[in-house]
């Protein structure tokens, strides 16, 4: 294996250490990943923009900082791919929508600033469902991303690009965002680790809002420790985000290292009864989940069944709250100030140009959700829809609070089914929405949750989801790392070679 090939097979933690000791350089590692992108992204299409020379220049700058003795973090010099919903100064940011084609943000998202400050190198921007609305990347305006495990199948969504980039070794690390499962479900179906931190744990400043009260950025990686290290880089209070929590980031890397010892003695894991009873989960997914729970027991965890009676209402409540907020958040895309403008030939009135711009600029799922949300917030319907959904949200939160009085973490499958073939769920929106059945409750509650590979079903990855109380992100990393420690080799390292 050449040095360059070796770089793309190492974990981010290993790369960071090798760069810090001078064994390799950030520029060398960055070039290795750019080569890899060049070789396989034609088949995978994980990236909407590859930073190329800009990434190499940034890597060389980091190498100079390291050579000058600057004290940078453990991931300094390691490349990272960023979901195209986070603003990057002077680098195209489209949220995979035609309506933002050509927009160059004048500012970096806080997450991106923190990556740069810690010496991470932005490789490029990853594909996604338009404005993060979808579970397959089939709603990207720029064409879908393909799952490295089977190029005929979806990589999950909305953050399919970030997950596929990591799975296909086009990036050692990626940033995703999770509104109803958009980090975790792609993680599950691509055999990668995806963590949604506590809401408010990572700044949303510069994250193009889909649903403000639910959106949360987080790490997508091949190992639990890498996820924890990346979480520590991007997490923590940001005065630019009013909903950001003013408290230290939980010690997640320490928890991941502790979990890697494989000892879960004293940890109480709750299995949600209602999820087990829910129909629609594939038998292979259920089998992998049951095996993972058995492994946790073997590692010393105490597993009990808990009841969360309102979880079954989480999905419908989510599909009122998220579209309602999105209908307001996306109102600014009207062609007046930036991005696409359609039909402005000098003869048309303002309203007409706005209308034509939105008709041309938004895809079908975005339009569907804007209409749903506009309706749910309308006078006369507000109480029955948005208001009622907020009450359900409170009840779901109470279920979590009650459950966490009995157990330390909750366990569930991440998603009911493995990666599905392209086109198999686009005809029926509700069939697509079911992909987020198990992930949505944590978004409504605001607590952290992680998906860690736990097995295969018919040769495709299955994810185990660990949910923890708000600001107890460390717990889920510990349990996930313990499960990961039982896999040799790790599932993420078993991704088949992509043939271009």
């Amino acid at each position, binding site marked *: 294996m050449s040095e360059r090939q070796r770089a793309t097979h190492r974990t981010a933690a290993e790369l960071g250490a090798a760069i810090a000791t001078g064994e390799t350089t950030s520029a060398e590692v960055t070039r290795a990943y750019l080569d890899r992108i060049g070789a396989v992204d034609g088949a995978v299409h994980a990236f909407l923009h590859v930073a190329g020379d800009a990434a190499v220049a940034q890597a060389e700058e980091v190498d100079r900082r390291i050579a000058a003795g600057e004290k940078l973090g453990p991931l300094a010099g390691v490349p990272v791919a960023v979901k195209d919903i*986070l603003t990057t100064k002077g680098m195209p940011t489209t949220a995979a929508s035609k309506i933002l084609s050509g927009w160059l943000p004048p500012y970096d998202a806080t997450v991106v600033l923190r990556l740069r400050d810690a010496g991470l190198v932005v490789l490029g921007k990853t594909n996604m469902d338009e404005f993060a609305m979808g579970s397959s990347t089939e709603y990207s305006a720029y064409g879908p991303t393909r799952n490295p495990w089977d190029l005929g199948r979806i990589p999950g969504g909305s953050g399919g690009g970030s997950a596929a980039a990591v799975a296909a070794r086009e990036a050692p690390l990626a940033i995703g965002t999770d509104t109803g499962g958009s980090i975790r479900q792609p993680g599950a179906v691509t055999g990668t680790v995806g963590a949604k931190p506590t809401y408010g744990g990572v700044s949303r400043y510069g994250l193009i809002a889909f649903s403000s009260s639910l959106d949360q950025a987080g790490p997508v990686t091949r190992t639990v420790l890498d996820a924890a290290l990346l979480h520590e880089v991007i997490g923590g209070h940001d005065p630019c985000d009013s909903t950001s929590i003013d408290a230290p980031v939980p010690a997640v890397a320490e928890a991941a290292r502790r979990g890697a010892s494989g000892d879960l003695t004293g940890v109480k894991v709750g299995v949600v009864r209602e999820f087990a009873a829910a129909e629609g989960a594939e038998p292979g997914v259920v089998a992998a989940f049951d095996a993972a729970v058995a492994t946790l027991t073997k590692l010393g965890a105490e597993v009990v069944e808990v009841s969360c009676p309102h979880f079954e209402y989480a999905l419908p409540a989510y599909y009122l709250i998220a579209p309602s907020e999105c209908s307001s958040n996306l109102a600014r895309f009207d062609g007046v100030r930036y991005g696409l403008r359609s039909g402005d030939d000098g003869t048309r009135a303002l309203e007409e140009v706005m209308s034509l711009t939105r008709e041309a600029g938004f895809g079908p799922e975005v339009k569907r959700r804007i209409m749903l949300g506009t309706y749910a917030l309308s006078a006369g319907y507000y109480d029955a829809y948005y208001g009622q959904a907020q009450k359900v949200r409170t009840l779901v939160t109470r279920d979590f609070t009650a459950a966490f009085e009995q157990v330390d973490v909750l366990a569930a499958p991440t998603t009911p089914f493995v990666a599905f073939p392209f086109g198999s769920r686009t005809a029926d929106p509700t069939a697509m929405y079911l992909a987020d059945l198990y992930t949505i409750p944590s978004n409504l509650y605001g607590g952290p949750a992680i998906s860690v590979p736990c097995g295969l079903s018919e040769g495709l990855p299955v994810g185990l989801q660990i949910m923890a109380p708000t600001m107890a992100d460390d717990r889920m990393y510990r349990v996930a790392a313990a499960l990961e420690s039982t896999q040799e080799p790790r599932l993420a390292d078993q991704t088949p070679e992509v043939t271009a």
Partner: protein
Amino acid sequence: MSTASTATGELADVLSRYEVVLGLEVHVELGTRTKMFCSCPTVFGAEPNTQICPVCLGLPGALPVVNAVGVESAIRIGLALDCSIAEWCRFARKNYFYPDMPKNFQTSQYDEPICFDGALDVDVDGKTVRIGIERAHMEEDTGKSTHVGGATGRIHGATHSLVDFNRAGIPLVEIVTKPIVGTGADAPAVARAYVAAIRDIVRALGVSDARMDQGSVRADVNVSLMPIGASEFGTRTETKNVNSLRSVERTVRYEMVRQAQILDDGGVIVQETRHFNEATGETVGGRTKETATDYRYFPEPDLVPVAPDPAWVAELRAALPELPAAKRTRLRAEWGLSELDMQAIDNAGAFELIEATVAAGAGPESARKWWLGELSRHANEAGVELSELSVTPAHVAELQSLVDGGRLNDKLARGVLAGVLAGEGTPTEVMTARGVEVVSDTGALTTAVDEAIAANPDVAEKVRSGKVAAAGVLVGAVMKTTRGQADAKTVRELILGRLGVQ
């Protein structure tokens, strides 16, 4: 409406059949150093689009952070209006499209305002009218559109529009009254007095420069009529962004007459927003509310609730400055004026000017005399408000001190004042430049007196023989030779002394 008396007649006619109901929404632009949700500066009149950032431009991904001074100002306004202050409240999004509103929603407050349920007393011609305050809430201003190419400067007929986002995100407090009923013929004056009182209060609080001409205080005026004795309010119109006290008054009067004509003819009032045209004194229809946007308010998820600590609110309450109404009562007593005198001062818009003149050293009586006399005459002639004259309270105080010091007499002082108004400088500068100072050199005066006596021996003889009143002729002669620049009293004393009387 050609004359005031015709207008009053029309109004009396309207009120013989209808009762008027008013509702006023006053927007106060706060004078915070930075905007409501970002740290951009708020300086008025800067080059377009120089005080902007991703937040106030509503760029994708940007998030708001509440300006704590804005919250404090809103609470202080609420306290001054005798409102309850919410212990917990939220911002809400008001969703509608407009090109100068960057996010296509306005961050405002809806059913959870920070201040609610207050009252304000205003005086109109000696009568006190209590105005109920429904709420005062925080929100952000929009950008400003300039419509180019049309005849009217309004969007209709324009070829293109320019948008300045410097104003986008400037903090506003919107103060909403409860329906104001029973004001009858005073309705226009009550509306004016209420807006003036709000303006004076926010200025006294120091939370706004309260410049109506710059739009930092502007009123939406709601007017409706209902048949006398009816229990249900009529359909209202809302005339937006009225930006002078005079226009507030004219808007109410115009709408009362207009609506009465429609109702008399069996028509119905369309619920709509209207625009007041300063030039014609008329309101013109705009957006019809029936077809207008459903604002789809919902709690702003990007901001956390505002929960002012009751102890802090108590501190703010204790630290409120003296409010205009209390100050008026106090100064009336200090100045020794009657209520009628004070009303004359109020009607002339001279209260603050007189207060400042007294503060600059003049006596209250002379300050009042100048502003309500000579200066009111000048203002009337020029068709402007007293405050718009190019003379300051400091000038008036200086002028009065020249009179008190014997350096100017009343007639000379009026001439000097005209010079100040003409921009010739301060009173002392005008006096010196025009060479009009009272002759106080007794040597020169004595010569003039002796000449006058010598020229009028028969008059002098009458005075010597005890007909003191005849001395007036000699005084007049001296004043003539000194071209009026002598103090008449001094001259008279000199003449009597010279002639050995007293």
